[in-house]
Protein backbone atom coordinates (compact mmCIF):
# COMPACT_ATOMS: atom_id res chain seq x y z
CA UNK A 1 0.00 0.00 0.00
CA UNK A 2 1.26 3.43 -0.88
CA UNK A 3 2.27 5.30 2.24
CA UNK A 4 0.93 8.62 1.04
CA UNK A 5 -2.28 9.65 -0.64
CA UNK A 6 -2.27 10.50 -4.32
CA UNK A 7 -5.27 12.66 -5.06
CA UNK A 8 -5.00 12.17 -8.84
CA UNK A 9 -6.08 8.55 -8.34
CA UNK A 10 -9.33 9.76 -6.79
CA UNK A 11 -10.27 11.59 -9.99
CA UNK A 12 -9.06 8.72 -12.13
CA UNK A 13 -11.17 6.20 -10.23
CA UNK A 14 -14.11 8.57 -10.08
CA UNK A 15 -14.26 8.57 -13.88
CA UNK A 16 -13.72 4.81 -14.06
CA UNK A 17 -16.57 4.23 -11.61
CA UNK A 18 -19.09 6.19 -13.65
CA UNK A 19 -20.13 3.28 -15.95
CA UNK A 20 -21.06 1.22 -12.88
CA UNK A 21 -23.76 3.75 -11.95
CA UNK A 22 -25.99 2.01 -14.50
CA UNK A 23 -26.19 -1.27 -12.63
CA UNK A 24 -26.61 0.47 -9.27
CA UNK A 25 -29.53 2.48 -10.60
CA UNK A 26 -30.94 -0.63 -12.26
CA UNK A 27 -31.11 -2.31 -8.86
CA UNK A 28 -32.63 0.80 -7.28
CA UNK A 29 -35.31 1.34 -9.92
CA UNK A 30 -36.36 -2.28 -10.39
CA UNK A 31 -36.39 -3.10 -6.71
CA UNK A 32 -38.41 0.00 -5.90
CA UNK A 33 -40.94 -0.71 -8.66
CA UNK A 34 -41.42 -4.30 -7.51
CA UNK A 35 -41.17 -3.19 -3.90
CA UNK A 36 -43.98 -0.66 -4.35
CA UNK A 37 -46.23 -3.35 -5.77
CA UNK A 38 -45.30 -5.71 -2.93
CA UNK A 39 -45.77 -2.95 -0.38
CA UNK A 40 -49.22 -2.14 -1.76
CA UNK A 41 -50.26 -5.81 -1.66
CA UNK A 42 -48.95 -6.20 1.87
CA UNK A 43 -50.53 -2.99 3.14
CA UNK A 44 -54.06 -3.75 1.84
CA UNK A 45 -54.91 -6.62 4.23
CA UNK A 46 -53.91 -4.48 7.18
CA UNK A 47 -55.82 -1.45 5.93
CA UNK A 48 -59.03 -3.41 5.39
CA UNK A 49 -58.42 -5.77 8.34
CA UNK A 50 -58.63 -9.00 6.36
CA UNK A 51 -58.55 -11.73 9.05
CA UNK A 52 -55.69 -14.16 8.32
CA UNK A 53 -53.85 -12.13 5.70
CA UNK A 54 -53.54 -9.24 8.12
CA UNK A 55 -51.54 -11.41 10.47
CA UNK A 56 -49.36 -12.70 7.63
CA UNK A 57 -48.43 -9.25 6.39
CA UNK A 58 -47.65 -8.22 9.96
CA UNK A 59 -45.16 -11.08 10.22
CA UNK A 60 -43.72 -10.24 6.80
CA UNK A 61 -43.15 -6.61 7.70
CA UNK A 62 -41.75 -7.48 11.11
CA UNK A 63 -39.31 -9.98 9.62
CA UNK A 64 -37.99 -7.76 6.86
CA UNK A 65 -37.68 -4.78 9.16
CA UNK A 66 -36.25 -6.87 11.98
CA UNK A 67 -33.36 -8.54 10.16
CA UNK A 68 -30.34 -6.96 8.46
CA UNK A 69 -30.50 -6.55 4.71
CA UNK A 70 -27.22 -8.42 4.32
CA UNK A 71 -28.74 -11.49 5.98
CA UNK A 72 -31.80 -11.18 3.74
CA UNK A 73 -29.56 -11.04 0.66
CA UNK A 74 -27.82 -14.28 1.59
CA UNK A 75 -31.08 -15.86 2.70
CA UNK A 76 -32.70 -15.24 -0.66
CA UNK A 77 -29.61 -16.06 -2.66
CA UNK A 78 -29.21 -19.45 -1.00
CA UNK A 79 -32.83 -20.09 -0.06
CA UNK A 80 -34.92 -19.11 -3.05
CA UNK A 81 -33.44 -21.79 -5.35
CA UNK A 82 -34.12 -24.41 -2.64
CA UNK A 83 -37.71 -23.30 -2.26
CA UNK A 84 -38.25 -23.18 -6.01
CA UNK A 85 -36.79 -26.66 -6.33
CA UNK A 86 -39.68 -27.92 -4.23
CA UNK A 87 -42.05 -26.81 -6.99
CA UNK A 88 -39.66 -28.25 -9.58
CA UNK A 89 -38.44 -24.96 -10.97
CA UNK A 90 -34.75 -24.96 -11.80
CA UNK A 91 -33.18 -21.55 -11.34
CA UNK A 92 -29.52 -22.59 -11.27
CA UNK A 93 -28.90 -20.63 -14.47
CA UNK A 94 -30.67 -17.49 -13.34
CA UNK A 95 -28.31 -14.51 -13.05
CA UNK A 96 -27.40 -13.45 -9.52
CA UNK A 97 -28.78 -9.99 -10.20
CA UNK A 98 -32.32 -11.43 -10.18
CA UNK A 99 -31.86 -12.67 -6.62
CA UNK A 100 -30.33 -9.39 -5.56
CA UNK A 101 -33.24 -7.40 -6.98
CA UNK A 102 -35.71 -9.82 -5.37
CA UNK A 103 -34.05 -9.32 -1.99
CA UNK A 104 -34.05 -5.53 -2.30
CA UNK A 105 -37.65 -5.54 -3.52
CA UNK A 106 -38.85 -7.63 -0.58
CA UNK A 107 -36.84 -5.48 1.82
CA UNK A 108 -38.14 -2.15 0.56
CA UNK A 109 -41.61 -3.69 0.14
CA UNK A 110 -41.84 -4.04 3.91
CA UNK A 111 -40.87 -0.42 4.49
CA UNK A 112 -43.09 0.87 1.66
CA UNK A 113 -46.09 -0.99 3.06
CA UNK A 114 -45.60 0.78 6.38
CA UNK A 115 -45.36 4.12 4.58
CA UNK A 116 -48.57 3.41 2.64
CA UNK A 117 -50.37 2.36 5.80
CA UNK A 118 -49.41 5.54 7.58
CA UNK A 119 -50.29 7.69 4.58
CA UNK A 120 -53.73 6.15 4.04
CA UNK A 121 -54.39 6.66 7.73
CA UNK A 122 -53.59 10.34 7.24
CA UNK A 123 -56.27 10.82 4.56
CA UNK A 124 -59.40 12.31 6.04
CA UNK A 125 -62.16 9.76 6.58
CA UNK A 126 -64.67 12.22 5.12
CA UNK A 127 -62.96 11.89 1.73
CA UNK A 128 -63.93 8.23 1.42
CA UNK A 129 -67.41 8.96 2.74
CA UNK A 130 -67.83 11.71 0.16
CA UNK A 131 -66.69 9.24 -2.48
CA UNK A 132 -69.32 6.73 -1.37
CA UNK A 133 -71.95 9.49 -1.18
CA UNK A 134 -71.63 10.28 -4.86
CA UNK A 135 -71.97 6.58 -5.64
CA UNK A 136 -68.40 5.34 -6.02
CA UNK A 137 -67.63 1.71 -5.30
CA UNK A 138 -65.04 0.83 -2.66
CA UNK A 139 -62.39 0.28 -5.31
CA UNK A 140 -63.19 3.54 -7.11
CA UNK A 141 -63.06 5.54 -3.90
CA UNK A 142 -59.74 3.97 -2.99
CA UNK A 143 -58.15 4.42 -6.39
CA UNK A 144 -59.47 7.86 -7.31
CA UNK A 145 -59.79 9.58 -3.95
CA UNK A 146 -57.64 7.96 -1.29
CA UNK A 147 -54.61 6.80 -3.26
CA UNK A 148 -53.66 10.10 -4.95
CA UNK A 149 -53.79 11.91 -1.63
CA UNK A 150 -52.03 9.13 0.24
CA UNK A 151 -49.21 9.04 -2.32
CA UNK A 152 -48.65 12.76 -1.86
CA UNK A 153 -48.55 12.34 1.91
CA UNK A 154 -46.22 9.33 1.66
CA UNK A 155 -43.83 11.09 -0.71
CA UNK A 156 -41.32 12.42 1.86
CA UNK A 157 -41.08 9.00 3.51
CA UNK A 158 -40.82 7.35 0.11
CA UNK A 159 -38.05 9.77 -0.81
CA UNK A 160 -36.08 8.72 2.25
CA UNK A 161 -36.60 5.09 1.28
CA UNK A 162 -35.25 5.74 -2.22
CA UNK A 163 -32.08 7.29 -0.79
CA UNK A 164 -31.76 4.47 1.75
CA UNK A 165 -32.21 1.95 -1.04
CA UNK A 166 -29.49 3.62 -3.10
CA UNK A 167 -27.09 3.41 -0.18
CA UNK A 168 -28.10 -0.18 0.55
CA UNK A 169 -27.18 -1.28 -2.98
CA UNK A 170 -23.57 -1.09 -1.79
CA UNK A 171 -24.19 -4.47 -0.14
CA UNK A 172 -24.80 -6.20 -3.46
CA UNK A 173 -21.05 -6.57 -3.92
CA UNK A 174 -21.16 -9.38 -1.33
CA UNK A 175 -22.92 -11.55 -3.92
CA UNK A 176 -20.43 -10.56 -6.61
CA UNK A 177 -22.47 -7.88 -8.38
CA UNK A 178 -20.23 -5.37 -10.13
CA UNK A 179 -22.10 -2.24 -9.09
CA UNK A 180 -20.34 0.84 -7.73
CA UNK A 181 -18.92 -0.76 -4.60
CA UNK A 182 -17.92 -4.00 -6.31
CA UNK A 183 -16.22 -2.00 -9.02
CA UNK A 184 -14.44 0.20 -6.48
CA UNK A 185 -13.04 -2.90 -4.82
CA UNK A 186 -11.64 -4.38 -8.00
CA UNK A 187 -10.26 -1.21 -9.64
CA UNK A 188 -7.23 -0.78 -7.35
CA UNK A 189 -6.00 -4.39 -7.52
CA UNK A 190 -3.02 -3.27 -9.63
CA UNK A 191 -2.21 0.06 -8.01
CA UNK A 192 -3.21 -1.01 -4.47
CA UNK A 193 -4.64 2.49 -4.02
CA UNK A 194 -7.72 1.29 -2.17
CA UNK A 195 -8.17 4.38 -0.05
CA UNK A 196 -8.33 6.67 -3.08
CA UNK A 197 -10.78 4.35 -4.77
CA UNK A 198 -13.12 4.29 -1.79
CA UNK A 199 -12.88 8.04 -1.47
CA UNK A 200 -14.04 8.36 -5.07
CA UNK A 201 -16.79 5.84 -4.32
CA UNK A 202 -18.08 7.83 -1.34
CA UNK A 203 -18.00 11.00 -3.39
CA UNK A 204 -20.02 9.38 -6.14
CA UNK A 205 -22.64 8.03 -3.72
CA UNK A 206 -22.89 11.43 -2.14
CA UNK A 207 -23.49 13.14 -5.47
CA UNK A 208 -26.04 10.50 -6.47
CA UNK A 209 -28.04 10.85 -3.28
CA UNK A 210 -27.84 14.62 -3.52
CA UNK A 211 -29.24 14.66 -7.06
CA UNK A 212 -31.90 12.07 -6.19
CA UNK A 213 -33.00 14.14 -3.23
CA UNK A 214 -33.43 17.23 -5.39
CA UNK A 215 -35.44 15.26 -7.95
CA UNK A 216 -37.64 13.75 -5.26
CA UNK A 217 -38.30 17.14 -3.76
CA UNK A 218 -39.55 18.38 -7.14
CA UNK A 219 -41.78 15.35 -7.53
CA UNK A 220 -43.15 15.89 -4.06
CA UNK A 221 -44.10 19.47 -4.87
CA UNK A 222 -45.76 18.36 -8.09
CA UNK A 223 -47.81 15.74 -6.28
CA UNK A 224 -49.01 18.30 -3.74
CA UNK A 225 -50.26 20.59 -6.52
CA UNK A 226 -53.90 19.67 -5.92
CA UNK A 227 -53.72 21.16 -2.47
CA UNK A 228 -53.32 24.64 -3.92
CA UNK A 229 -55.78 24.20 -6.80
CA UNK A 230 -58.60 26.31 -5.33
CA UNK A 231 -56.42 29.24 -4.49
CA UNK A 232 -55.74 28.22 -0.92
CA UNK A 233 -52.30 27.69 0.47
CA UNK A 234 -50.86 24.28 -0.28
CA UNK A 235 -50.61 21.76 2.52
CA UNK A 236 -46.87 22.04 2.43
CA UNK A 237 -47.03 25.78 2.86
CA UNK A 238 -49.67 25.36 5.53
CA UNK A 239 -47.54 22.78 7.26
CA UNK A 240 -44.61 25.11 7.10
CA UNK A 241 -46.58 27.96 8.58
CA UNK A 242 -47.75 25.75 11.42
CA UNK A 243 -44.19 24.58 11.91
CA UNK A 244 -42.88 28.14 11.94
CA UNK A 245 -45.54 29.11 14.44
CA UNK A 246 -44.51 26.13 16.51
CA UNK A 247 -40.88 26.96 16.14
CA UNK A 248 -41.53 30.42 17.49
CA UNK A 249 -42.81 28.82 20.66
CA UNK A 250 -40.02 26.31 20.78
CA UNK A 251 -36.65 26.29 22.34
CA UNK A 252 -34.28 28.74 20.78
CA UNK A 253 -31.16 28.55 22.83
CA UNK A 254 -29.43 31.45 21.17
CA UNK A 255 -32.26 33.79 21.99
CA UNK A 256 -32.62 32.32 25.44
CA UNK A 257 -29.29 33.79 26.31
CA UNK A 258 -27.88 30.30 26.80
CA UNK A 259 -25.35 31.29 24.20
CA UNK A 260 -23.14 34.20 25.22
Amino acid at each position, binding site marked *: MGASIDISYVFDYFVKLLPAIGITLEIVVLSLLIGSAVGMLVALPRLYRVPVLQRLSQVYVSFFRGT*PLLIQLFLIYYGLPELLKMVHADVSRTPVLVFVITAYALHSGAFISEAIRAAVGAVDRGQVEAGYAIGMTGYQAFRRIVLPQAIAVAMPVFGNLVIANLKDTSLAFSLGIMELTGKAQTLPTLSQRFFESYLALALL*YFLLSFVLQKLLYRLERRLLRHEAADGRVSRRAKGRRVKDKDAAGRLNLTEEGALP
Partner: protein
Amino acid sequence: MKLDPAFIGEAFVKLLSAIPTTLAITFVSVGCGLLLGIVTALARIYRVPVLREISSAYVTFIRGTPMLTHLLIVMFGLPIAIDALSDSLGLSFRSVQVPMIGFAYVAFSLTAGAYMSEVVRSGLLAVNRGQIEAAYAVGMTTWQALRRIVFPQAFAAALPNLSNSVIGMLHGSTLAFTASVVEINAKAQIVASTNWKFFESYIAAALIFWGLTVVIERLTALLEKRVARYDRGGVA
Protein backbone atom coordinates in the same frame (compact mmCIF):
# COMPACT_ATOMS: atom_id res chain seq x y z
CA MET B 1 -30.63 -31.09 -1.24
CA LYS B 2 -33.54 -30.72 1.14
CA LEU B 3 -34.04 -28.23 3.90
CA ASP B 4 -32.50 -29.59 7.10
CA PRO B 5 -34.45 -28.25 10.10
CA ALA B 6 -32.13 -29.97 12.58
CA PHE B 7 -29.17 -27.99 11.28
CA ILE B 8 -31.03 -24.70 11.82
CA GLY B 9 -31.09 -25.55 15.53
CA GLU B 10 -27.46 -26.62 15.47
CA ALA B 11 -26.37 -23.44 13.67
CA PHE B 12 -28.51 -21.36 16.04
CA VAL B 13 -26.60 -22.69 19.05
CA LYS B 14 -23.24 -22.11 17.34
CA LEU B 15 -24.21 -18.57 16.38
CA LEU B 16 -25.06 -17.67 19.97
CA SER B 17 -21.33 -17.37 20.68
CA ALA B 18 -21.09 -14.50 18.17
CA ILE B 19 -23.84 -12.40 19.79
CA PRO B 20 -21.45 -10.62 22.22
CA THR B 21 -19.33 -9.35 19.31
CA THR B 22 -22.39 -8.06 17.47
CA LEU B 23 -23.71 -6.38 20.61
CA ALA B 24 -20.28 -4.92 21.38
CA ILE B 25 -20.09 -3.33 17.93
CA THR B 26 -23.65 -2.05 18.27
CA PHE B 27 -23.27 -0.52 21.70
CA VAL B 28 -19.79 0.91 21.20
CA SER B 29 -20.93 2.61 18.01
CA VAL B 30 -24.20 3.83 19.55
CA GLY B 31 -22.41 5.06 22.70
CA CYS B 32 -19.63 6.92 20.89
CA GLY B 33 -22.11 8.02 18.24
CA LEU B 34 -24.38 9.50 20.88
CA LEU B 35 -21.52 11.56 22.34
CA LEU B 36 -20.52 12.71 18.87
CA GLY B 37 -24.18 13.39 18.07
CA ILE B 38 -24.73 15.50 21.17
CA VAL B 39 -21.63 17.58 20.45
CA THR B 40 -22.51 18.15 16.80
CA ALA B 41 -26.19 18.77 17.56
CA LEU B 42 -25.37 21.34 20.24
CA ALA B 43 -22.88 23.00 17.90
CA ARG B 44 -25.64 23.38 15.34
CA ILE B 45 -28.37 24.49 17.76
CA TYR B 46 -26.12 27.01 19.56
CA ARG B 47 -24.68 28.17 16.21
CA VAL B 48 -21.07 27.85 17.34
CA PRO B 49 -19.16 29.62 14.53
CA VAL B 50 -16.73 27.13 12.93
CA LEU B 51 -17.91 23.99 14.70
CA ARG B 52 -21.39 24.46 13.28
CA GLU B 53 -20.25 24.35 9.65
CA ILE B 54 -18.04 21.34 10.31
CA SER B 55 -20.90 19.53 12.05
CA SER B 56 -23.32 20.24 9.22
CA ALA B 57 -20.84 19.05 6.59
CA TYR B 58 -20.12 15.91 8.62
CA VAL B 59 -23.78 15.05 9.09
CA THR B 60 -24.64 15.72 5.45
CA PHE B 61 -21.74 13.70 4.10
CA ILE B 62 -22.24 10.69 6.36
CA ARG B 63 -25.98 10.60 5.77
CA GLY B 64 -25.44 10.83 2.02
CA THR B 65 -23.06 7.90 1.73
CA PRO B 66 -23.50 4.20 2.56
CA MET B 67 -22.26 2.87 5.88
CA LEU B 68 -20.07 0.40 4.00
CA THR B 69 -18.03 3.19 2.41
CA HIS B 70 -17.37 4.66 5.87
CA LEU B 71 -15.96 1.34 7.00
CA LEU B 72 -13.87 0.94 3.84
CA ILE B 73 -12.48 4.46 4.04
CA VAL B 74 -11.59 4.09 7.73
CA MET B 75 -10.15 0.64 7.15
CA PHE B 76 -7.84 1.80 4.38
CA GLY B 77 -7.35 5.44 5.34
CA LEU B 78 -6.76 5.26 9.08
CA PRO B 79 -3.68 2.97 8.80
CA ILE B 80 -2.07 5.48 6.42
CA ALA B 81 -2.71 8.26 8.92
CA ILE B 82 -1.54 6.20 11.91
CA ASP B 83 1.67 5.11 10.19
CA ALA B 84 2.44 8.62 9.01
CA LEU B 85 1.84 9.95 12.52
CA SER B 86 3.99 7.36 14.26
CA ASP B 87 6.73 7.88 11.65
CA SER B 88 6.80 11.61 12.26
CA LEU B 89 6.87 11.03 16.02
CA GLY B 90 9.57 8.41 15.67
CA LEU B 91 7.47 5.71 17.28
CA SER B 92 7.70 2.05 16.38
CA PHE B 93 3.92 1.64 16.54
CA ARG B 94 2.46 0.31 13.28
CA SER B 95 -1.16 0.25 12.17
CA VAL B 96 -1.02 -3.56 11.87
CA GLN B 97 -1.00 -3.72 15.64
CA VAL B 98 -4.49 -2.24 15.76
CA PRO B 99 -7.08 -5.04 15.91
CA MET B 100 -9.48 -5.04 12.96
CA ILE B 101 -12.49 -4.60 15.22
CA GLY B 102 -11.00 -1.23 16.23
CA PHE B 103 -11.56 0.06 12.70
CA ALA B 104 -15.12 -1.21 12.80
CA TYR B 105 -15.68 0.65 16.08
CA VAL B 106 -14.29 3.89 14.67
CA ALA B 107 -16.15 3.67 11.36
CA PHE B 108 -19.51 2.74 12.85
CA SER B 109 -19.17 5.38 15.58
CA LEU B 110 -18.72 7.97 12.84
CA THR B 111 -21.78 6.61 11.04
CA ALA B 112 -23.89 6.53 14.19
CA GLY B 113 -22.71 10.02 15.19
CA ALA B 114 -24.30 11.65 12.16
CA TYR B 115 -27.64 9.89 12.62
CA MET B 116 -27.58 10.54 16.38
CA SER B 117 -26.90 14.20 15.71
CA GLU B 118 -30.24 14.44 13.91
CA VAL B 119 -31.97 12.44 16.64
CA VAL B 120 -30.60 14.70 19.39
CA ARG B 121 -31.35 17.85 17.44
CA SER B 122 -34.97 16.98 16.72
CA GLY B 123 -35.39 15.91 20.35
CA LEU B 124 -34.08 19.20 21.70
CA LEU B 125 -36.14 21.25 19.26
CA ALA B 126 -39.29 19.39 20.29
CA VAL B 127 -39.14 20.85 23.79
CA ASN B 128 -41.43 23.82 24.18
CA ARG B 129 -39.72 27.13 24.75
CA GLY B 130 -42.02 27.97 27.64
CA GLN B 131 -40.35 25.20 29.59
CA ILE B 132 -36.96 26.86 29.65
CA GLU B 133 -38.58 30.23 30.33
CA ALA B 134 -40.39 28.74 33.32
CA ALA B 135 -37.10 27.29 34.54
CA TYR B 136 -35.47 30.69 34.37
CA ALA B 137 -38.50 32.19 36.10
CA VAL B 138 -37.96 29.95 39.13
CA GLY B 139 -34.32 30.98 39.17
CA MET B 140 -32.50 28.09 37.52
CA THR B 141 -29.23 28.66 35.72
CA THR B 142 -28.97 27.70 32.04
CA TRP B 143 -27.15 24.47 32.87
CA GLN B 144 -29.75 23.55 35.51
CA ALA B 145 -32.57 24.31 33.11
CA LEU B 146 -30.98 22.18 30.41
CA ARG B 147 -30.18 19.28 32.68
CA ARG B 148 -33.34 19.17 34.77
CA ILE B 149 -35.98 20.47 32.37
CA VAL B 150 -34.89 20.24 28.74
CA PHE B 151 -32.89 17.00 28.57
CA PRO B 152 -35.50 14.71 30.21
CA GLN B 153 -38.20 15.97 27.87
CA ALA B 154 -35.91 15.87 24.85
CA PHE B 155 -35.02 12.29 25.71
CA ALA B 156 -38.68 11.31 25.80
CA ALA B 157 -39.27 12.99 22.44
CA ALA B 158 -36.19 11.42 20.87
CA LEU B 159 -36.70 7.91 22.19
CA PRO B 160 -38.51 6.41 19.16
CA ASN B 161 -35.85 7.77 16.79
CA LEU B 162 -33.13 6.63 19.15
CA SER B 163 -34.52 3.12 19.16
CA ASN B 164 -34.66 3.09 15.35
CA SER B 165 -31.05 4.19 15.19
CA VAL B 166 -29.98 1.48 17.62
CA ILE B 167 -31.78 -1.12 15.48
CA GLY B 168 -30.13 0.39 12.40
CA MET B 169 -26.72 0.04 13.98
CA LEU B 170 -27.50 -3.51 15.09
CA HIS B 171 -28.33 -4.39 11.51
CA GLY B 172 -25.37 -2.41 10.22
CA SER B 173 -22.98 -4.37 12.42
CA THR B 174 -23.28 -7.21 9.88
CA LEU B 175 -20.98 -5.14 7.64
CA ALA B 176 -18.13 -5.75 10.07
CA PHE B 177 -17.49 -9.02 8.23
CA THR B 178 -15.65 -6.96 5.57
CA ALA B 179 -13.16 -6.09 8.32
CA SER B 180 -12.89 -9.84 9.08
CA VAL B 181 -14.62 -9.42 12.44
CA VAL B 182 -16.49 -12.59 13.37
CA GLU B 183 -19.94 -11.33 14.31
CA ILE B 184 -23.19 -13.18 13.66
CA ASN B 185 -23.14 -12.79 9.89
CA ALA B 186 -19.53 -13.91 9.50
CA LYS B 187 -20.13 -16.74 11.93
CA ALA B 188 -23.10 -17.90 9.86
CA GLN B 189 -20.81 -18.11 6.86
CA ILE B 190 -18.21 -20.06 8.82
CA VAL B 191 -20.78 -22.45 10.28
CA ALA B 192 -22.17 -23.12 6.82
CA SER B 193 -18.86 -23.51 5.04
CA THR B 194 -18.25 -26.92 6.59
CA ASN B 195 -21.32 -28.56 5.06
CA TRP B 196 -22.66 -25.96 2.58
CA LYS B 197 -25.96 -25.61 4.37
CA PHE B 198 -25.96 -21.84 3.88
CA PHE B 199 -29.75 -21.49 3.82
CA GLU B 200 -30.21 -23.17 7.21
CA SER B 201 -27.34 -21.20 8.69
CA TYR B 202 -28.73 -17.88 7.52
CA ILE B 203 -32.21 -18.77 8.74
CA ALA B 204 -30.68 -19.19 12.19
CA ALA B 205 -28.84 -15.86 11.86
CA ALA B 206 -32.02 -14.12 10.73
CA LEU B 207 -33.92 -15.55 13.70
CA ILE B 208 -31.31 -14.22 16.11
CA PHE B 209 -31.39 -10.75 14.59
CA TRP B 210 -35.18 -10.77 14.52
CA GLY B 211 -35.22 -11.74 18.20
CA LEU B 212 -32.70 -9.04 19.14
CA THR B 213 -34.70 -6.43 17.23
CA VAL B 214 -37.95 -7.41 18.93
CA VAL B 215 -36.22 -7.24 22.34
CA ILE B 216 -34.95 -3.71 21.59
CA GLU B 217 -38.44 -2.67 20.44
CA ARG B 218 -40.06 -4.08 23.59
CA LEU B 219 -37.50 -2.43 25.88
CA THR B 220 -38.09 0.88 24.12
CA ALA B 221 -41.84 0.55 24.59
CA LEU B 222 -41.32 -0.05 28.31
CA LEU B 223 -38.91 2.84 28.61
CA GLU B 224 -41.25 5.07 26.64
CA LYS B 225 -44.02 4.48 29.13
CA ARG B 226 -41.65 5.42 31.93
CA VAL B 227 -40.17 8.59 30.43
CA ALA B 228 -43.43 9.89 28.94
CA ARG B 229 -45.23 9.76 32.29
CA TYR B 230 -45.12 13.53 32.64
CA ASP B 231 -46.86 13.90 29.31
CA ARG B 232 -50.30 12.53 30.12
CA GLY B 233 -53.40 14.54 30.70
CA GLY B 234 -55.78 14.49 33.66
CA VAL B 235 -55.25 15.44 37.25
CA ALA B 236 -53.98 12.31 38.98
